[in-house]
């Protein structure tokens, strides 16, 4: 599903590579934690998957597509198959829950009837039934992140990328968020989650890929956050 082959990314005006000869494979339906300190290259890894950045060397395949050969024109179609969740939710403050989720479908030209059908389903899936008409500022952080997850998942992407989704949320609420991510993963969606949250990584017992200074220092199935050896 996601295949990095010897990928190096150096940002302009920086000597140290953000990713340094990284090779990793993520299979369909996997749940992968991406851990490591700030600046270790986690976000760069996610941005490369979305083709928001281009690698300096190495090959990236996502959902069977060689990103280096994917024309700019087709990048939006790649992104339709990838959902994204961020630490800061990125909801539209002037739209309610339903409209925020529907927005993701409206802008890719889905028919209205389809939107009316699937948006309530996804809102229920993330556990926000009955709150479809609330505005984002009337919701707690955890609820806002659920809206963001609903928006990321409403188009049934093959891959869900989560960049520290629990970073702004207290530990108790984070458990609920992780349950939603797990539920999404169980539908067959590949989930890649970058995080600092040791408790969550330890409790989930999923594959852990650890980055340090742009290099993969650990790749462990059913791993924990800290060094297990």
């Amino acid at each position, binding site marked *: 599903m996601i295949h990095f082959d010897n990928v190096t990314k150096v940002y302009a005006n920086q000597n140290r590579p953000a990713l340094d000869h990284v090779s990793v494979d993520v299979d369909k339906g996997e749940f992968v934690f991406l851990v490591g300190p700030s600046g270790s290259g986690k976000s760069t890894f996610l941005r490369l998957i979305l083709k928001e950045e281009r690698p300096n060397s190495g090959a990236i395949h996502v959902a069977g597509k060689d990103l280096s050969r994917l024309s700019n024109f087709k990048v939006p179609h790649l992104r339709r198959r990838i959902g994204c969740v961020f630490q800061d939710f990125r909801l539209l403050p002037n739209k309610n829950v339903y409209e925020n989720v529907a927005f993701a479908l409206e*802008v890719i030209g889905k028919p209205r009837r389809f939107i009316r059908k699937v948006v309530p389903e996804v809102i229920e899936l993330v556990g926000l039934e009955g709150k479809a008409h609330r505005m984002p500022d009337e919701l707690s952080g955890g609820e806002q992140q659920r809206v963001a997850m609903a928006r990321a998942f409403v*188009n049934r992407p093959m891959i869900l990328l989560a960049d520290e989704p629990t970073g702004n949320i207290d530990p108790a609420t984070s458990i609920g968020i992780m349950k939603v991510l797990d539920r999404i993963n169980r539908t067959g969606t590949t989930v890649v989650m970058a995080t600092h949250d040791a408790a969550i990584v330890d409790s989930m017992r999923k594959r852990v890929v650890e980055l340090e200074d742009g290099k993969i220092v650990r790749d462990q199935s059913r791993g924990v956050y800290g060094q297990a050896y």
Partner: protein
Amino acid sequence: MRANFIFSEVWIGLRRNLTMTVAVIITVAVGMAMLGVGLMINAQVGLLKGYWGDKVEISVFLCNKGTAMPACNGKAITQTQTKALETHLEGLRGKGVREWFFEDQATAYQNFQEAYASNQALVKATQVEDMPQSFRIKVSDPDNYQSVIQAVQGQPGVSQVTDHKQLIGPFFQMLDKLAYYALAVAIILVLAAALLIGNTVRLSAFNRRRETGIMRLVGASNLYIQLPFVMEGVIAGLIGGVFAAVILIVTKVLLFEELGRFFAGPTAQLGWDAVAQTITYTMIIGVVICVLASFVTLRRYLRV
């Protein structure tokens, strides 16, 4: 493609920078109006040139009783003198003169009545006897009429020789200058409009960076992301174009119809078809400029 979605986005964008939108509309309106006036002056000059080109090019006015020209000494032209002039002109046929005819006082008065139909007071104050007799000459080579003028100038009984080129030449030159002036102003305003549209789109893009960020993320196509911004420019341009059209119609009624009535007959009137054509051109140019300005700005400020 969901049209109502795009249009709601466009509406939000236009309302959020209302002042910029108004500035764009005014600039486009005035710019396009100037462009249109320039084009209309050009068309009018063409019509007038055609009208006058068909007319007599040299008039040889003959002495009348009481003509205040020194060449006449206050005496009217005699029969013999007229005959002599006719022979003279006939002799020039083929040597610069294509054809000539005699215009008597009655015909002159009739033409005068027609030309000044809008000024009845003047027509009433003028008698048939006040009108000069004249020979009207069409030259074979319009650019070389000086020799013909010299040939008749100073002949006995000739009070004055005028050529229409001399009379209307400066007028055409002035119209041409006006047209160039209008076009120059139009170009400057079009530049200003393009910059204003660029700024408006930039503000819009900045105001809506959250939305566009999410659109990019969920895989909206470039067209879908950019279209609302381009449409903002187009709609502002169209509204400006409508105002420009109104200005052009008013100009046609107030300026060109008066101009045509004063300097030529109804045949040289700038028609409504010409005005419609000008309006169409200016509208198209206005909208194209808006689209281009929007696109160029979006490429810089809206990374997709």
